[in-house]
């Protein structure tokens, strides 16, 4: 390195020094330590003892691991697509020349910044099987068909749909992103399509969606990663409905991956096992991110 280059190098290091410390202490070291722990029998009160692949072997045969993974995937598979469709639909509506658009935008957006802890509290109450507002509204609608609404958070088959419903309420964030994306779509494209006699549906199908594709892929990927790490809502809903000491109540239907991981690490003190779980999640997320970016890139290139 020339003296000039060296000076620049140290200047660069100087500006990024905080991040070098932060990256090392709060990310790199934990990532490495976690990998090591995942091969150990470790509780924080006792020294780690190497146990080889035991944690990973046990994971494969641990029903709760599969159950919690299944619960989480189920939640993600419902909340992400439905949330995306709703966010897109709202954005398309708001992209029309409607009066009071900014008011509507605020109404749709606000729920998404409500602290998840308060949102869960509110929805657990909204979805109360007996006194909740949701069932009070559903009952008269379902009555003609001889149906009664579910008891939601007390019924294992309905707890995840309840959490999905709650997540849909917070979909305003994505809506704002799509709205911004829509406003970037060149007007000329629509005009050209209209001249070609394209219907509204065809314009959506052949102009809007392809133009939005990169944004959609990016957001779907982020939303999926977020859904896979969902913790507070499941943790709280379980605490609100469960028997003392139950994880993922009722009947482990809200035992999400991170909930199981947290209680494995900090209730059962099996921190090595929890680290192995964390690494499996890491791999899943890395794979999804890779697929997401690949799809997004291909799509963008295809569109051009």
């Amino acid at each position, binding site marked *: 390195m020339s003296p000039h*280059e060296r000076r*620049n190098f140290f*200047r*660069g*290091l100087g*500006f*990024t020094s*905080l*991040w070098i*410390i*932060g*990256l090392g202490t*709060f*990310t790199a070291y934990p*990532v490495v*330590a*976690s990998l090591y*722990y995942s091969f150990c029998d470790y509780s*924080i009160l006792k020294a780690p003892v190497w146990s080889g692949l035991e944690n990973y072997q046990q994971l494969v045969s641990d029903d709760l691991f599969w159950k919690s993974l299944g619960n989480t995937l189920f939640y993600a598979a419902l909340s992400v697509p439905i949330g995306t469709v709703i966010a897109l639909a709202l954005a398309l*509506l*708001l992209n029309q020349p409607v009066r009071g658009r900014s008011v509507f935008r605020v*109404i749709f*957006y*606000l*729920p998404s910044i*409500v*602290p*998840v*802890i*308060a949102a869960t*509290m*509110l929805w657990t*109450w909204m979805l*109360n099987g007996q*006194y909740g*507002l949701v069932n009070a509204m559903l009952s008269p609608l379902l009555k003609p068909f001889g149906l009664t609404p579910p008891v939601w958070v007390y019924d294992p088959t309905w707890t995840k749909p309840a959490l999905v419903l709650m997540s849909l309420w917070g979909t*305003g*964030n994505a809506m*704002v*992103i799509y709205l*911004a994306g829509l406003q970037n779509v060149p007007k000329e494209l629509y005009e050209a399509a209209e001249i070609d006699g394209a219907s509204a549906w065809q314009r959506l199908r052949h102009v809007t969606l392809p133009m939005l594709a*990169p*944004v959609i892929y990016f957001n779907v990927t982020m939303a999926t990663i977020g859904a*896979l*790490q969902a913790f*507070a809502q499941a*943790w*709280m809903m379980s*605490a*609100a409905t469960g028997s*003392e000491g139950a994880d993922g109540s009722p009947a482990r239907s809200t035992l999400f991956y991170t909930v199981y*991981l*947290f209680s494995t690490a*900090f209730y059962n003190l099996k921190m090595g096992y*929890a*680290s192995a779980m964390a690494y499996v*999640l*890491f791999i899943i997320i*890395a794979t999804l*991110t890779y697929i997401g970016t690949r799809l997004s890139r291909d799509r963008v290139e295809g569109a051009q």
Partner: protein
Amino acid sequence: MAEASSDPALRRATKRAVIYLLIVGAALLFAMPFVWLVASSLKPIEQAMSLPPSFVPRAHYASIDGVRLEITRDYLVSGPGFVADVVAGEQLGRRVFVNAEEAAKRGTELRIVHATQPGWWHVSERMEATDKRVPRWDIVEAGVIETKIRPRWENYPAALNRLGGTDRVSFWRFLGNTLLVCVLGVVGTVFSNAIVAYGFARLKWKGRDAFFALTLATMMVPFPVLMVPLYGVFRSLGLIGSLVPLWLPAFFGSAFNIFLMRQFFRSIPEELSEAARIDGCSEWRIFWRIILPLSKPVLITAGVFHFLYAWNDFLGPLLYLTRTEDYTLAIALQSFQSQAGGVQWHYLMAASTVIILPVIVLFFFAQKTFVQGIATTGSKG
């Protein structure tokens, strides 16, 4: 259909009507939970838990022993009987409800106050927050109960006193803790990331791009991977059970904010820096005097979003905090909910309202920042 298509004006009007219908309908659905939240927070518990649900909080009044009191309607009595005071024996001083048979059996032990009919209400003196006192009660005809509309604002102080699952630590303490974590975190986020991002955006140095790629790669690491070792890190620093782990990392940058600010810094014309360099300004001065003042929007975006993140964070406090007096609002609310294995919905809704309110206020202060910030962060910058 044929008519509609033959008349473009009508068709447009129909289309607009459908759009407005959809938008207003959706807005109602999105706003309803907020209304229900506030309505529930202003009711007494037995009205929050009543069928059919009502949005209007009410208060009931009746006379017990000649004193007009606010009462709760506990339940309808299903059989005839007597309200009686016990004037002798083991239960001396108590008031009991007995049927004719038992009244006859206990004889002079009881002093009959009055007889009751099926369908009367068992009512008790309303007492929130009772620890020791015993409420007065009676069984009265439905007709003598007087009902008024009254929002119960006192739910708010009562709920806030119970936050954290204890009345020992005041709400102000939780608020102070939360603000401490939020404000220090925001300060740390804004400054550390700006400095680091400057190093990535405006300086050329060997290894910069590789390091930046590494930085971006860390965004993929899910928090659970870091959780156990991070706990160990803060443990060896002796910081478990303090608020420090919740704000300290903000002072050392975060990949996402570095990325965000770098994008912004790169959009500032290079000529500005060059001119300053020719004038003999140091890089730090350029950063501080030229770049930062031009970067307010991105700084505010990062700051506001960190504030939201810290305000909402639940897992961090759950992991690091041990003493109730160190709690942040989010975890104080959750402890309140999980305490004693049950749910006092009216208080929970009041406390939730209080926790949501600052976020909404923040939103109205910085609405533009929010909308722009999300749009840029969400679309890959």
